[in-house]
Structures are given as C-alpha cells and as structure tokens.
C-alpha cells in the first residue's frame, strides 16, 4: 500500500459526530465550510448584506444549540437549509410588520435604451429590481422562489427543506411568479412589456 500525506476531510455527518463528542474546533470547521452557502441564501432572501450577516450568525448559533436534535439519517444540508429558511422567514415577518415594503417606492433610472426592446438589461439593476418586486411576496413565497430560481433547488428538495408537499411548493412558485409580474408591470413597465411580449 502506498503511503499518502493527503488528509481526508471529514464529511458533514462526521463533523457533527465530532462536535457532539465535545470538540468545539470541529464546529469552527463546520461554520467555515457552510458560511458562504448560508450567507448567500440569507442575502438573496433578505436582500440586505448586514441583515443577512446577522441572520447567518443567528443560524449558526441555533445550529450549535440544536445540534443534538440532528438525525444523521437525513442530509445535513437539508437540515441546515430548514434552519436558515425558518430564521429568515421569521426575520422577514417581523420586518414586514415594522415597515411594510421599504423598497416599494424604489424606481430605477434606465441607463440606456435598446432600439428594439426599449431597455437594455443591466445585471446590477436586476438585483435591485428583484428586491423591489419581490417585496409583494409573502416570506414563504420569496424563500421558495429564491431557493428554486437562484439556488437551483428542485421543488422536491425544497419540499424536504420546508417539510411540506411538492405540490405546495409548485403552487407557491406559480403564485410568486404571477404576483411579481403584476408588480413588474406596476413599477417597471419597460421590463413588464418585455415579459408580456415573450409570453
């Protein structure tokens, strides 16, 4: 057998077992490994870097506190995503009750025009348009839309994360698209025209 210096990194389940055995260093490894995934999802759901950072930290603290409840027969990421969506949805519900749709009055200025379509899409604008338009969605609808359209998760996986049926996820997606089209028409008619022409 050929000796090797390559160290094999433990998978998520093994890390959880090590943490449960009382090694806090293993938890640090887990945080480092999952930070980008957790933060990306939080940022896309919440749409604000600082809030997303705070929510991500809260997710990891809850993760530490509830690690004993994790059942290793399920995928760790599914369990982690469930925690992220729960915390993010709670945060959005609280925020909605405080200030309803901060971005509802946002109106972007077009930077240039296309002769045929009337608008040239700027990638940076798309994020702002999404934040403005998605404010009409419920926290759950927005979470499902983000997971499906931006994190490329299939509806079956989303159903596992949220603990609901796949048909429920598809319904939420359908309603989210409809609501966003209406908002797009109201707030950004140039984009809406583009959408309508193609559908």
């Amino acid at each position: 057998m050929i000796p090797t210096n390559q160290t094999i990194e433990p998978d998520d389940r093994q890390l959880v077992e090590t943490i449960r055995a009382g090694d806090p260093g293993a938890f640090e490894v887990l945080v480092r490994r999952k930070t980008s995934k957790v933060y990306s999802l939080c940022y896309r759901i919440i749409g604000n870097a600082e809030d997303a950072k705070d929510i991500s930290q809260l997710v990891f603290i809850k993760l530490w506190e509830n690690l004993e409840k994790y059942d290793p027969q399920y995928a760790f990421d599914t369990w982690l995503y469930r925690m992220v969506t729960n915390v993010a949805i709670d945060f959005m519900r609280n925020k909605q009750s405080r200030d309803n749709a901060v971005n509802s009055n946002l109106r972007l200025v077009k930077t240039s025009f296309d002769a045929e379509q009337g608008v040239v899409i700027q990638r940076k604008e798309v994020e702002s348009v999404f934040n403005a338009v998605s404010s009409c969605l419920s926290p759950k609808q927005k979470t499902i839309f983000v997971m499906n359209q931006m994190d490329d998760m299939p509806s079956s996986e989303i159903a596992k994360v949220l603990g609901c049926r796949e048909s429920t996820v598809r319904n939420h997606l359908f309603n989210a698209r409809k609501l966003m089209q209406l908002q797009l028409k109201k707030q950004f008619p140039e984009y809406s025209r583009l959408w309508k022409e193609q559908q």
Partner: protein
Amino acid sequence: MISCNAFRANLRPGSSEPELLEHLRHCDACLDHAVGVDPDFLFRSIGGEELVPPGGVEAFTHDVMQQLHVRTTESRLAHRVLSWPRRLAVAATIAAGITGAAVVWQHEQHTFESLPPIAAATPKPVSHMAAAAPLTTKPVVETYDSKNATIVEVPSEGSNDVKVVMIFDDQLPADL
C-alpha cells in the same frame, strides 16, 4: 464556461442545465437574449455563485465562535450560581430555620400559658413588713386564759382566713 454561440444555440425556455445557467450568470451580453427567450431568466441570472459576508469568511467564523464562547460562559456561570440543587438546599435551610424558630416559640408560649395555675397555688404576696416579721416561727396559740391581758382581734378579709389576735399582757411568757 461555454461560448456565447453555444449558449444562444442551446438555450430554450425553462432550460436549467448547469452550464447554460453558469453562462447566463456571467455574460452580460447574453442576458438580453436569454430574457427574450424566457423572461424567467431575468431573475435566474442573479443566483448561482456563493457570496461572502462583509469582512470575509474568517472574520465571520471568528465572530460566531466568540458569540458562542460568550453564551457558553454565561450559561455556565448561571448554572453555577443558580443550580437547582443549590436553590433547593438554600430553600430547605431557610424552611428548617423558620420551622425550628416557630416550634421553639410555640413551646415557650405554651409553657407561659400553663404558668398561672402554678402561680395561684403560691401564697399571695404580702406586704413587705408582714413578710419580714417572723410570725410563722411562733407557735400557734389556740387557747389563752388571763385576767390582765388585753386581747385585740384583727378583722380578716375572708371567712376561711386564720384569725389574727393581738395579745397585750405583762405576764405573757417570753417565748410567745
């Protein structure tokens, strides 16, 4: 990443192949084309890459671990000061002290209440002069006969009381 030509040639409404989505999310030139094919690509173009929190992953991890350390220390201290066995021990000590004091007080109260019958049996307090006179050491005179004596009876308070008689006689023996 695939070329723009390959992307445009293969893109269909609802496409979700990873290489097509990767191109969509990195090529500004093809974004207009993609939205023209399927408007859903407008928002699909946002996702994909993993983001880094402000300050970087290391700083974020450090913050999380520090918060956990603070929480763990707090809960440990709280556990040390307010542990249930300790609380129970303190409560039991206080309860035992109160009960003991109550029992002692009740016992003393009972003893004091039972004193009056004993006090009634004792002689009534007499005047200082009477108590000082050595009357009890003298023999009780039941009968006395004399022609020269002057006998004075002192009126008593109750009918059962012993009658006190004062005798003045020059010939009275010294021991009476």
